[in-house]
């Protein structure tokens, strides 16, 4: 009997870990894109998750409430809200680039100056959310969901299954855009060598703009999913920042699927850790993983060796 309970606990931690991992993966993709193409660690990226989540919240309060789709807790308007929030957050990211990072690029600022500025931007974005939407927690829906048993012993909320599936779709879509479209090719060329890309006549500013838009959209999806499965708070994104960075570095910058695997690995490690260490330390697990990666495999699981070196 005891062993059975342990097994169930383990299976549940795996399921929860995959869900957290999917959200982290959506954030890590944006961080990974910006490490490769914009060439700096963007500490304001996690705030885009928060913005996406809150924009979707505002949209759902204005849209007429639809009836919930099947077993899900939300109706069509939340699906629409993901799209609207994605577009709007893409614009927020673009605006931030115009106002701050583009200006610094034009002055040929050092990439660590960009990191500095991203911290300032993060502080401003986070506190703007607090000003606009207030400090209290929000929810998309008051519906209570009943967890369904998807596999023996593993219970998931229908919303969680939906989140996992949609994450996979989004990653696949990004992969196809990067592989098949001219824009994707331009972005990959930028990642290889900005100077060479410019010489080859690639519109580098356009590639940069779309990098911001894409990472903003993915972040917004991650933010809405986070809000859907937990709650909305002004610091919801900021609290994930370390885990998102760890996921991006663990996966290896330079590999999209690496970022996804990195996200899932961090999510699993966090949720499995509570089986052996006090849950208060759960949020420190990404840091331990990060140090392990930096000590033993700084290029990440799927990264090229030269990327991480100075």
């Amino acid at each position, binding site marked *: 009997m005891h062993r059975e309970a342990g097994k169930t606990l383990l299976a549940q931690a795996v399921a929860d870990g995959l869900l957290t991992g999917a959200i982290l993966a959506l954030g890590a993709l944006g961080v990974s894109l910006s*490490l490769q193409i914009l060439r*700096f*660690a963007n*500490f304001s990226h996690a705030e885009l998750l928060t913005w996406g989540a809150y924009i979707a919240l505002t949209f759902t309060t204005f849209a007429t409430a639809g009836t919930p789709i099947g077993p899900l807790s939300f109706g069509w308007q939340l699906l629409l809200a993901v799209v609207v929030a994605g577009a709007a957050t893409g614009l927020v990211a673009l605006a931030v680039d115009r106002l*701050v990072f583009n*200006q*610094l690029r034009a*002055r040929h*600022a*050092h*990439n*660590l*100056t960009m*990191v*500095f*500025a991203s*911290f*300032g*931007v*993060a*502080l*401003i974005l*986070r*506190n*703007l959310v*607090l*000003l606009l939407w*207030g*400090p209290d927690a929000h929810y998309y829906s008051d519906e209570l969901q009943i967890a369904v048993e998807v596999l023996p012993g593993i219970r998931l909320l229908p919303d969680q299954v939906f989140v996992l599936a949609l994450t996979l779709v989004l990653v696949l879509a990004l992969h196809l855009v990067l592989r098949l479209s001219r824009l994707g090719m331009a972005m990959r060329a930028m990642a290889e060598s900005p100077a060479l890309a410019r010489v080859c006549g690639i519109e580098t500013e356009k590639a940069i703009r779309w990098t911001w838009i894409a990472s903003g959209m993915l972040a917004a999806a991650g933010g809405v999913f986070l809000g859907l499965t937990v709650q909305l708070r002004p610091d919801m994104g900021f609290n994930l*920042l*370390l885990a998102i*960075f*760890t996921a991006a*570095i663990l996966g290896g910058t330079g590999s999209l699927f690496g970022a996804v695997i990195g996200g899932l690995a961090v999510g699993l490690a966090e949720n499995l850790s509570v089986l052996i260490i*006090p849950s*208060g*330390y759960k*949020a*420190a697990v*990404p*840091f*331990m993983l*990060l*140090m392990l990666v*930096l*000590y033993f495999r*700084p290029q990440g699981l799927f990264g090229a060796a030269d990327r*991480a*070196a*100075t």
Partner: protein
Amino acid sequence: MMGIVAYLVFFAIVVLIFGVATLGLNLQWGTTGLFNAGVVGFYGVGGYTQAILTAPGRPELLGNLGLPWLVGIAGAMAASAIAAAIVGVATVRLRGDYLAIATFGIAVALQLVALNWERLTGGSLGLTSIPRPLASVFEEPLSYDLFYLCLMLAIAGTVYVALERIVRSPWGRVLKAVREDETAAVALGKDARRFRLQAFVLGSTVIGLAGALYVSFIGFVSPFDFVPIITFQIWTMLIVGGSGNNKGALLGVLIVWGLWTASGTLISKLVPAAFQTQGGAVQAILIGLVLVVTLLFKPRGLIGEEPVVSRHLG
């Protein structure tokens, strides 16, 4: 009148404590170009170590060893140095923003330790009645504060002079060379990684000293004394004043801390109690704007780094 004097003394002490931390950061960022995104982590390690080593013993706590003040200061600096070495060894060989991420991470992890390891840190309640140096000698609170101000002037002055000499020494010149052109420095036989690690550990040690001085002045410590925004405040002080210039660093502390407390007082007077959280948000946005605008329009800060030319060329 005495109220104002007492407040000014208090303000000056806090400025000098932040000044020491900013000087430490200036060695890392201003001189060596190392990005420390976890200033508050090292500041907190210093503060907590001071508390754990010097506070009077309590049966339910592992620490609270009741050791002398100077032992606490030395221990605080050593503990910050060790924390810096742990992240430094892994990251000095990697691209610069990895150090930023790792230091940000250690600050998050240390905050969790402070909150959760109740047997050592007292958890969210923190540790209290941390002894202040020579507290029994002074009867009046104001005369004690004046004494602490003199102590801080002596310590901050010593740190300032020491760092000025260090930066101008051959060792300091290598740090600048590594910052400006690592390849050239390596070609001249300098082990860039070792110099970066040394500068990072030394800078964090100074930041830890500032944390210990803060805690032994305030007399208590809790996780809420070491919130992430402190990292940000210390940076803004450095960038506004002028990174790479120790005088600029100190000037920046005065201006940014003055602006921060003035805006805080103003908001608490003007904003109704129910909206104080939003008032805090305005304050944070303000300091974020100060940083971004300085980076954009005055990247060298108010007093930037002095250009140095070899005396053999002059």
